[in-house]
């Protein structure tokens, strides 16, 4: 006989507990921060925890370093040297938490938001910020949905995946042509979310224009901890190129699996490959060798970028794209504040919309926002060569010649 022989009943005490629950939850709610005069508050919303925590922490690092630099240089001079102050938020990789951070930061009196790394979080968070007409700078977030909804408060300095795909395809076409058309087919492996699927579909549609057939699109979940089956599938199809669009851990794991299984291809070429960075090259130099990626990258010929790289590395961190993109977005905001002479949301939005900011860390043209998207933003095409990451396109920023096709496994 079970001990639970009672029926769930409603007693006075049970009701008192239940009705008290709402009061408990209201007490549980931490009081919203109050707006303060003085410093200009900047809301930083990144996934510093969760499955992309590393990327979020890197974004936070870049943004906070930039805020520190702006303040050291005297703050916003047109506002009497007003200092920037970071209000830190963690989206936890969840849409609803991202929105909650927007609401909390609005009550903390932020002048602008910077975030959010993941496109779904960014889509919802920018929507929430639009209610308050607060400018929202997308530091990382690939989806073109972010800037195609007619919201006036969104600004994305970096290129979206449409532009990255176009430039990546052009670079791959040029490489293939120079190699006498060594590649005729490709298999695309992508994460199953909005970023990976969108990028892979665009790529598959454009590959025929450079004489490469997309044999198959293979989606995988986040997280995926074993790529053996996908590697076997790739081996069976024997493509000339494997193209990847996925987040960091899956990118590295897939690359390692293909390397371990000695799958011979002319090239591994990713667009917005989340794991293509110094961490990957440092931890898996053999695997990374000859891999190529179209991605956000710093201008290797920029003294400011090289100086920041040294500072970041001196602090024990890696100079990944999140760092310099977030850093550049804070600088873009500081420039707009300087020109607006005010943290008033309308004036700041207008200053951002008319910005011609020179992103000196990045290989970009002059900033020009059209519907919130910077037309001057463009990606770099990189290749791992001799244990380092070299820019191979665009030509004016290139630091090395590409190796394509890559040497075969013996």
């Amino acid at each position, binding site marked *: 006989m079970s001990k639970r022989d009672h*029926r769930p009943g409603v007693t006075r005490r049970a009701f008192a507990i239940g009705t008290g629950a709402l009061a408990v939850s209201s007490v549980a709610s931490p*009081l919203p921060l109050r707006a303060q005069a003085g410093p200009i508050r900047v809301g930083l919303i990144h996934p510093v925890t969760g499955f992309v925590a590393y990327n979020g922490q890197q974004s936070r690092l870049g943004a906070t370093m930039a805020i520190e630099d702006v303040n050291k240089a005297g703050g916003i001079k047109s506002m009497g040297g007003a200092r920037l102050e970071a209000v830190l938020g963690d989206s936890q990789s969840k849409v609803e938490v991202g929105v909650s951070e927007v609401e909390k930061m609005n009550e903390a009196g932020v002048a602008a938001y910077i975030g959010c790394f993941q496109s779904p979080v960014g889509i919802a968070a920018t929507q929430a910020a639009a209610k308050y007409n607060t400018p929202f700078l997308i530091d990382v977030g690939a989806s073109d949905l972010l800037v195609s909804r007619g919201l006036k408060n969104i600004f994305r300095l970096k290129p979206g995946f449409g532009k990255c795909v176009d430039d990546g395809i052009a670079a791959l076409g040029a490489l293939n042509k120079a190699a006498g058309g060594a590649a005729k087919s490709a298999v695309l492996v992508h994460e199953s979310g909005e970023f990976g699927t969108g990028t892979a579909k665009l790529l598959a549609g454009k590959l025929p224009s450079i004489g490469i057939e997309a044999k198959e699109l293979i989606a995988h979940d986040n997280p995926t901890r074993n790529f053996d089956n996908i590697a076997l599938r790739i081996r069976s199809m024997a493509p000339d190129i494997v193209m990847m669009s996925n987040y960091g851990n899956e990118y590295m794991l897939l690359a390692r699996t293909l390397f371990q299984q000695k799958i011979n291809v002319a090239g591994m070429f990713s667009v917005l490959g989340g794991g293509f960075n110094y961490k990957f090259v440092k931890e898996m130099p053999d695997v990374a060798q000859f891999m190529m990626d179209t991605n956000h990258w710093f201008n290797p010929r920029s003294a400011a970028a090289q100086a920041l790289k040294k500072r970041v590395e001196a602090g024990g961190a890696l100079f990944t794209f999140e760092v310099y993109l977030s850093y550049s977005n804070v600088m873009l905001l500081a420039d707009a504040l300087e020109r607006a002479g005010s943290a008033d949301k309308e004036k700041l939005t207008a200053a951002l919309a008319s910005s011609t900011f020179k992103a000196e860390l990045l290989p970009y043209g002059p900033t020009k926002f059209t519907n919130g998207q910077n037309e001057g933003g463009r990606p770099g095409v990189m290749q791992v060569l001799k244990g380092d990451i070299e820019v191979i396109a665009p030509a004016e920023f290139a630091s090395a010649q590409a190796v394509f096709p890559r040497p075969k496994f013996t």
Partner: protein
Amino acid sequence: MSRTALLACGGGLIAAALYPLLFGGSNYAVNLGFLVLFAAFLGQSWNIAGGFAGQMSFGHAVFFGTGAYASTILHVSHGWNPWLAWPVAIAAGAAVGAGIGTLSFRAGLRGSYFALVTLAFAEAFRILANSVPFTRGGLGMLIKSDPHPANLQFRDPIWFYYLALVLCVLSLALAWWLTRSRFGARLAAIRENEDAARALGINTFREKVRVLALSGALCAAGGTLYAQKYLYIDPSIAFGVDKSIEMLLVSMIGGAGTIFGPLIGAGVLHFVSEVTRELGGALPAIKNAQPLALIVYGVILVIIVGYLPDGSMGLFRRRRALPQGQGHA
């Protein structure tokens, strides 16, 4: 229901209705209140099947996602008004619940086998949503922002709060009805001993399918509300395992099979989440606040499983069951 209980209920309802005003119209507080009520509502949908009927599920996201996608597809792709799409989404949730119940219970699945099958269904639906064109696959579905009550979109988040409050109160009333009705008594009999219930003449298959359909309908209603609030869904958001876990957790922590358990559980979980997140924001040295939250969740769960198998509500039941005086020893 006694007069005192009715008064307590009315008082709680008034307190909940006044809650947004207590914080001077703070949208953050309103949003947090929404999250608690919404989690409580989803938890109650799980509780009706998992707590009252003992049909533990690990995959309630399948109903949540069905509701979210059904209304969004009808609204975005076929131009339906979301208010009209909402009941259809609820019906879709009920149909999926009845379908899964029929397939699983016909095969005689019980306990952990049934729980694992529900998890498998949720995963299958997620993969399906990733693959078929009418859901736009992994690209997800964006609902055009057009804040107007007629579009089930509100400029002021207070209305979403009140909508969640209405749903939460309805689910509490439904749970209360289950403790008083013949249907609820049959479910309790199935939960305690299914073979004995069958021996008593209860059509256990029919009752279990019914309760899963009811639970699925409620959960689907939550899916539509989520989609209309955040205006974007994708397969991971809609059918992700974290949604299933949250529904299960709030019920287990608050007290499965109790009326107010999910509400208490939702309050506790969001309190833990907010405090750990605040710590993460206030103390940059604590860079990884989520593991901290997970550790706290884990400790709470261990305590509840070890010492309070009936959840937080069980604590009060035990105190009530003690002879006079022993409770204060």
